[in-house]
């Protein structure tokens, strides 16, 4: 084996070891991001569909934490990412529901104001 071949093998070996080591690390960042996403979604006080979505996110987060506790880091990372995107969806849904409710209320309020204005103008 020449020196160059040895270098190439060393590089491959280093990459392999690095990948293995990385895969064995706990998905701390993913879990933290998922927890943050769930907390942000909860702040929106979701109802209906968004509440169900948030519940799913919480379940996924719980599953991720359980897997993490079992040192199944890869599965834990997958579940954490799912929990994060699901929680972000729950937050978006809750914001959408709120915005829709706000628009409905303001539309009704404006209609009422316009009606009152019309009534007072006719007097």
């Amino acid at each position, binding site marked *: 084996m020449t020196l160059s*071949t040895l270098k190439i093998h060393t590089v491959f070996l280093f990459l392999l070891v690095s990948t293995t080591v990385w895969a064995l690390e706990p998905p701390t960042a993913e879990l933290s991001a998922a927890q943050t996403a769930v907390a942000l979604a909860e702040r929106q006080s979701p109802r209906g569909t968004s509440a169900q979505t948030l519940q799913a996110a919480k379940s996924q987060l719980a599953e991720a934490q359980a897997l993490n506790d079992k040192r199944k880091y890869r599965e834990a990372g997958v579940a954490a990412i799912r929990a994060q995107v699901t929680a972000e*969806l729950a937050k*978006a849904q809750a*914001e*959408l529901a709120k915005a829709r409710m706000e628009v409905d209320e*303001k539309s009704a*309020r*404006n209609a009422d*104001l316009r009606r*009152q204005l019309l009534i007072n103008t006719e007097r």
Partner: protein
Amino acid sequence: MNRKMAGFLSISLALLLGFAPISIAATKANPDVDRLNTILTALDNDPGLSELGAVERLKARQAVTQLASAKSKSREQALYVAAKRVETAQAAAQAELLANQALQLDRERDQIMLQASQRDAEMARREADQLRLQNMARQEETERLSLAVEEERTAREQSTADAQLSNAQAAQARKLADARAREVELARKEAELASILASDNVSDGDALPPMYRRGASSVYTLAGNSFASGSATLTPAALSSLNKLAAVLRNGQGIIRIEGFTDDRGADAANLALSQRRANSVLMALRAGGLSAARLKASGKGKAQPVADNGSEAGRARNRRVEIIVN
């Protein structure tokens, strides 16, 4: 060298074979990727949503791209993430659209309130104008009424002045008439007095006793020689005179006071008694002449109230008298 080349080729082949499935999978048609891309494209083409939810849309596109290039073992995870990201992008865009609508509704509300304020201000201005006009009309009415009242007051004052003038003229005329009547009466009495004075004997039975006025009263004086000396008996001439006086006074209604007087000679008690008796005699004579007793009151005053000096005979003669005072 050949061995080195052969080793390198073998490694390259191994790598090529190792990545081949990935390349095949990437180029193979992926219905999930197409479906999600279709959704994102529709979102981009929606004129109401194309500019909204940019961050979420970017994340969704990245997720779809990762899905397209995902290995088979991580495809399920990538699909899940991409689907949720796309769904999130849709919700975020719609939420942003609704938020914009809410802002638009707020502006619309402000516009309505502005219109209401403008309308209220216009109504207030109209009311103010109306009140101002009413006030002007009221002021004009007040001025008109004031003028009418002033005219009425002036007319009333003029009328009052006229009435007062008329009353004054009437009063003046009455006073003038009274004065003329009094003048006539005085002339008549003067004539009577003149006729009495013209008589040589004041106790002549053909004439009334002499009379003069004391305030509002007429005083007839019967001289002392109308009685016998030291007596209360009237002489015939005095009786005749009193009879005529009674005839004159018969039509009157006033009280007639008969007061007897003496001079200062003799005792006071005797003078008082004599004057009383003489007054009584005159009273009886007047009653006999037809006067009511109720109108007659007699009193003796004695030497009081002398009308002349008792130092002379003439004075004492004048003090001896009976006065018949007719009110």
